Structure formats: C-alpha cells, structure tokens
C-alpha cells in the first residue's frame, strides 16, 4: 500500500508534503518541489494522485515520488478542479469550459463543455457518470459526462421580502450517498438539493450571519443529513438538515484565517476534523467534544488537502 501518509497537503509555493499523525504530533515529509502553485489534489488510483496548478495537471506517483505524466490545458483561465472518471480526465477551467481528455494521450481533447462564466467548483458524482458545476452567479448544474447535456439546474435563490434579487456564489459542492446534493455559498448559505424530485429550489437550507462558506465536506459515516463547513473568517460549523433550526449544531473554533479545506479523519480511534487554514496552520479538532486537539504551524500557505482514501472507494 503506497499510502503511508495520513494526508497530503499542497502549498502555494509548490511544495507537496505528506503528513503522518503521531501521538500529539505531526510528522512531515517533503514529496515534491514543483515551484508552481498547487491548487487542487484528487485521487487517481491506489498509489497515484492528481495535482493541478494554474495551467498544468501532474500525475504524481507516491511510491517513486516522481511525476509520471504531465498535461497542459490551453484555455484562458486557471484550473479549478480535476478528477478522473473511467478513462478520462475531466478538468474545469474558471472561464467556464470543462475539458475532457483521455488519460493515455496527453495532447488530444475529446470534448469541451461550456458551463457558463465564472466557474468556481467542479465535482464528480461518485456512483454515476455525472459531474456538477457551480460558480459566481452560476447556480448548481449537474451534467451528463457522455452526452454533455444538463440533467439538473438549481433555481437561483428566492428574492427576499422586498422582492430584491439575492446573490448566488457557489463555493463548494458535495454529494450524499442517496444522490442528494449539498451546496455551500460564499454568502453564508448551505443548501440541500434533491435532483430526483421536481423541486428546483433547495429542499432545506441553513444560514450563517456575517460569514461566507469556503469549503464543505460530508460525513464519512453514511449519514445523509450531516455536513461540516469551513467559513471565510475561520470557524468550522457542523450542520444537520434534519432539524428545523438553521443554526449550527456545533462550532469548531481556533483558526484566525479562512478554512481552505477540511476533512474527517480517525485519530486515536475517535473521529476528528482535520483542517488547513490561510493563517498557515494545520489543525485537528475532536469531533465529539469540539476541542482543539493539535495545531501546528506549517509556514507556507496551504491550498489543498487530501486525506488517505478508504480502500473501498478507489
């Protein structure tokens, strides 16, 4: 098994570091110095990860600690997300085009899908051949990968009581196992959509005052209603869509900068929340008590976090 690290962090100065969890300590190993800003990380297979910078995609071998393949995206704009599905790489660029490339050939482009301007997020649907996109004034859309057609479009948010238009800025999308979609907005709203129903407005939504949401993650214990969200001012909220209240169930405090990415991880046989934030710290909170367990200064600005995947998901 090549995943000797518990997590991998990509930095803005091009470093890639593996993190091992030890008792009350983190252990770091330098994997790569690419001198490109590493925007996103995603899984490729058992011992490879996909790294993307502004215009390039690298496939990194964790065993040999080497870059095995390079791709170049010729688009005006930066890459905002990459994932691998079957035998193709699907890349989202922030001018709105989604580029589909075969894995074996680095130069040919299979397909291009235009998904509207100011794209900020692209995610794959785990079980089906679909992907979801969203961005600034660009609400959630679910696309079919083979045909390139829209399957579901969320309606823009409801106007308020004075009939004024509400802003819409999707920051992150995640899927539950029952194919419901959670969308976090930069204006402090988390929405739960049901693409199977005829309702295009959110089924449930939660709100926060004075903060925006940056990152989102569903819980790994197959509960289809709970979600953790990182805000732009540094706290992490735990929301539950089952209740009537729109307030968070729990808050994880401690960070003074925007939570760039977060994930659930098991540490000392208990569930913990691991997060990276723009104040250059790596933190672990206990999920049950909500206390800060460990924090460490990681010097450079982290942008992406990838947790060791379960063996079943690869």
């Amino acid at each position, binding site marked *: 098994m090549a995943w000797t690290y518990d997590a991998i962090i990509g930095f803005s100065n091009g470093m890639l570091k593996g993190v091992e969890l030890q008792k009350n300590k983190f252990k770091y190993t330098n994997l790569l110095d690419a001198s490109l*800003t590493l925007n996103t990380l995603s899984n490729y297979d058992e011992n490879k990860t996909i790294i993307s910078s502004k215009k390039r995609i690298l496939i990194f071998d964790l065993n040999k600690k080497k870059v095995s393949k390079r791709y170049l995206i010729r688009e005006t704009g930066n890459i905002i997300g990459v994932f691998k599905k079957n035998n193709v790489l699907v890349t989202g660029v922030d001018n709105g085009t989604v580029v589909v490339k075969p894995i074996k050939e680095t130069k040919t482009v299979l397909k291009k899908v235009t998904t509207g301007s100011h794209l900020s997020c692209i995610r794959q649907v785990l079980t089906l051949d679909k992907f979801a996109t969203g961005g600034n004034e660009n609400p959630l859309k679910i696309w079919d990968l083979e045909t390139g057609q829209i399957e579901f479009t969320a309606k823009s948010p409801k106007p308020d009581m004075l009939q004024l238009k509400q802003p819409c800025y999707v920051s992150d999308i995640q899927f539950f196992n029952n194919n419901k979609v959670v969308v976090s907005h930069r*204006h402090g709203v988390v929405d739960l959509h049901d693409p199977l129903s005829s309702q295009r407005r959110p089924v449930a939504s939660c709100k926060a005052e004075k903060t925006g949401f940056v990152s989102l993650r569903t819980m790994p214990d197959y509960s289809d209603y709970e979600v953790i969200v990182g805000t732009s001012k*540094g706290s992490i909220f735990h929301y539950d869509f089952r209740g009537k209240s729109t307030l968070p169930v729990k808050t994880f405090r401690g960070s003074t900068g925007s939570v760039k990415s977060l994930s659930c991880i098991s540490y000392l046989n208990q569930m913990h929340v691991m997060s990276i934030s723009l104040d250059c710290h790596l933190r672990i909170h206990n999920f049950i008590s909500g206390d800060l367990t460990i924090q460490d200064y990681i010097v450079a*600005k982290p942008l992406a976090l990838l947790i060791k995947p379960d063996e079943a998901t690869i």
Partner: protein
Amino acid sequence: MDIKEEDSENEVNEGQAGPELPKLARKKPKGLLRQEKLKDLKNKKKIQKRDRKLRKASGDPKQVPRTIENTREPDSTVFHSEDEDFDQKTQDLAAEFDHDEFADYYSDLYKPKVLITYKEKPLRKVREFGKILTEIIPNSVRIFRRDASVKETIQAAINKGYTDLIIINEDRNEPNGLILVHLPDGPTAYFRLSNVIFPNKRQRKEFTNHRPEVITTNFTTGLGKTIARMLGAVFHQDAEFKGRHVVTMHNQRDYIFFRHHRYKFLKNKPYLRELGPKFTLRLQYLQEGLYDPKCGEYRWIMTDKRHKIETSRRRFFL
C-alpha cells in the same frame, strides 16, 4: 512560692484572655494617608538603590525589568534558534517568500507605482494628509475617485499599471482608516489610523523630492513579516542617500508607528530631525486577493471577533 507562681500565671492569663475592647478606629485624614504612602515609596526606592549599589560592587549582572513585551505569550509562528526543526522552518519561509505576491518587488523586477485616493467627498484635512503622503512616497499620484466604488477604482488602477493602491477614510474631518491593496492580485489590508499629527511649517520646508530610505522594525510573527513586506513594497527599492530621509515603520504591541526623519552624522554620532507626519496604524484584517468584504477570504481578521482573539493583554499578533 507556689502561690506566687500561680498568681503570676493568673495575671498572664487574664492579660491574654481578657475581653478585648474594640479600639476606636479613627479614620486617618486623607492627607496623612498620602504622606504615609509617599514615605513607603521613598523607603522602597532607598532599599532598591542600596541593593543596586551592592550588586554593582559585587559584580553581579544587571536585573532585567519585567515589561509586557518580554513576558509576552509565546506565538507558534515566531522562530527560535533552539527549536528542533528550526532549519526546516526557515528554509520553508524562504521558499514561501520566493513565491508570494511581493517576490517580484523584492527581486527588483518592477518599480512601484502608487495611487492614493480618499473617500467619496474628502474634506480639507484628509486631502492635506494625502498630499503629504504623495510627497513622501516616490512615484505616487493622488486622485479623487468621485462616485466610483472601491472595486471599480481597483480595476481602473490595474488597467493603468499601478502596483499599489491606498484609500484613506475619514470621520468628522479626521483621517481614521487606511486600505492598502497590492495590485494586481492582492492581498488587501485594512488599518485603523489614529493620532495623525501633521508636519508644521518649519518641517514642511525641509521636505525634498529625494526617495527616502525605509526601515520596518520589530515585526516577528509570520503575519507581521507579511505586513512588513507589504508596507515596504509601497516604497521605492533604491533610496537616494543624498536626501538623508528615512521613513520608519516600527511595530510595538501591534501598533505600527510611522515616522519620517532627516538624519545627520556629526562626529560619528547620528542626529535626527523629525519631519512628520506622525501616525499609528492598527491592523484590522488581512484579506486574500483584491478588496471584497462580502465574499473574500481572510488570512487574519479581528473585526467581529475581537473578544475571542484578544484573550490576554500579553498576546500580540505582529
């Protein structure tokens, strides 16, 4: 003998266990109390002085006074040379500074070009303040932005090739806020501006067009270093030493003091002459990217959560 002893014992017992009458607690007059306190203080100082003399005579080292600065709470982002991974961390920091937004400036790839604007309709005092700043900061221009929003101003400044943007806010004819934006892709910092003292007539006469030297001191933490780099990047890199001007930005207990001096060496001794203006800056937030208060991501923010952050008066962030 026995009887006598008993008697004496009895007497003693009486004296000890007898009913204690409450003494008439007469309040001392206030003046007397103050006098006593002064006396105590004088005695204390005398003892201290004697101890100091004794220490000096015996050759013991000087005692260090306890101040807020040297009892400050330890910060994880300050490096100490005795840390186990000190080398790795300094290496990482150097790599970070090679790739951040100010790397181009510090590797001397461009010359800064600064735009100074005000709030929508500035009053006299804040216009005067902007005028003085343009005289100090080399290669800077000031304009009125009229009804253009901050975001529009930023876009226009990027198109015209400016590298930094300063926006001064005012309240009741007093400058009270300063937004500093590094163009073209951030970061943005907002400072509270206070205690602005303008140069007087004599000082204004001594202003020259030479580019000043810039000193940023006492920034220790990771955030502080970023702020220092940001403030330094507003000024020109190569100073004109002929002008003998120096701009100092000194950080003390999270307040950044701005001073402008003219120096002279007489018999190898430096002499300073203050030119003004004097003001202090206090960081409110540092934002990633361009100015966007609603959707922006913050690297560090104090507004709305000051009580959560300021847990102790010995905790500092810069």
